[in-house]
């Protein structure tokens, strides 16, 4: 792959107190690549994503973002407000309602649910709303932590297709998941946390 690098991680390490979670994690993420981060529970996948996003400070190593790359983050928690509807939640990122409707529709969230308070939606529908936010940011790099949680098979396929499309349009993503990513081998790379 000759694409330009968007993110370089060198010798990244983190500990909680005396317990080392991981050490010497290094990789380069280039445009058009999806990096799947796998590993057993507690191996540090979520922590790695938070260190990359900058919401947590690391003990050792460096995280270098090239060309001021935009990022979008989807954590374990959806980061949406239950009292607001999906459209109202997304209005922060795109004031134009049409754009928000398009993003939600791409994730397969039916129009009937667009104006309901999110606390009335299922866990999967809330996850779709959070994923729609990722789309709306227009970010070059997506950092997704267990994006398939609570999603049905169809939504799973939709997200996989969106990842492929994102990579093909010059984006990149780091995806921490226990699910197998059914992506083209040309764009998929794997990092196993041990």
């Amino acid at each position, binding site marked *: 792959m000759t694409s330009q690098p968007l993110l370089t991680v060198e010798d990244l390490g983190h500990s909680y107190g005396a317990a080392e979670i991981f050490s010497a994690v290094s990789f380069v993420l280039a445009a058009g690549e999806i990096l799947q981060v796998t590993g057993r529970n507690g191996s540090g996948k979520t922590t790695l994503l938070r260190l990359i*996003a*900058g*919401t*947590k*400070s690391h003990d050792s190593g460096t995280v270098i*973002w090239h060309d*001021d*790359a*935009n*990022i*979008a*983050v989807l*954590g*374990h*928690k*959806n*980061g*949406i*407000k*239950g*009292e*607001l509807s999906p459209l*109202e939640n997304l*209005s*922060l*990122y795109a*004031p134009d309602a049409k754009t928000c409707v398009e993003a939600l529709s791409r994730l397969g969230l039916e129009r009937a649910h667009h104006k309901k*308070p999110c606390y009335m939606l299922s866990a999967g529908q809330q996850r779709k709303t959070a994923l729609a*936010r990722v789309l*709306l*940011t*227009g*970010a070059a790099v997506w950092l997704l932590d267990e994006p398939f949680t609570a999603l049905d098979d169809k939504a799973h396929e939709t997200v996989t297709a969106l990842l492929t499309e994102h990579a093909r349009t010059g984006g990149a993503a780091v995806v921490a998941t226990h699910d197998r990513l059914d992506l083209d081998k040309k764009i998929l790379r794997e990092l196993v946390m041990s």
Partner: protein
Amino acid sequence: MKVNGFSFRRYFFFCLRLLFRQRREVALPLFFFLLVSSLFPLSFANHAVPLLAPAALWITALLSILLSLNNLFREDVEDGFMEQLMVAPQPLGGLVAAKMLAHWVAYILPMFVCLPLLGLWYNMPSDTLFVLSLSLLLGTPTLLVLGALAAALAAGLKQGGTLLILITLPLATPILLFGLTMVDMSQNGLSYAAARDFLAAMAVVSIGIGPLVTAASLRIGMD
């Protein structure tokens, strides 16, 4: 590193909309303010009521503000929204300022609407009511900033509400004293300019650096 996201203005209105949806919870501190303030005149002799009115209203307003602050950041931390704020392209301090402004509008502004009614209840002269309102107008931004700082430190803690009160009350005491001094000077026909200017200066400093310090506290708390 940044993400396409939202502006100060858009986030301010987003917070207001959210607070409107949570209006039952938002109304509780205001009801507390009204209920507790209205009890004081019933508990004292008639001639003492106008003298006690400024202190009663100031202390009740302070407690009401503290009551409102418990959820200022806690919900954002719990539902993952804080993470979105932290990766937003705008400085976190600016977004915190927008949230605090929305909080002031939703929780504190309605208190000023109720003040004339309470002034009647306390049989307070109109000029005293004016100075009391002015002292609260100048004092509440600082109280809000002090409380927000404590709320940021307590956001991730289970017993955060108690910690918030323990941190804020001692820090808020000088503001309370200067606010009451302002009213007292006015009641005695003296110039209250010094106390007014102090409260105004504190408000300017608080508004200027408070959101930045609060944002730093939130980052430390989330780490």
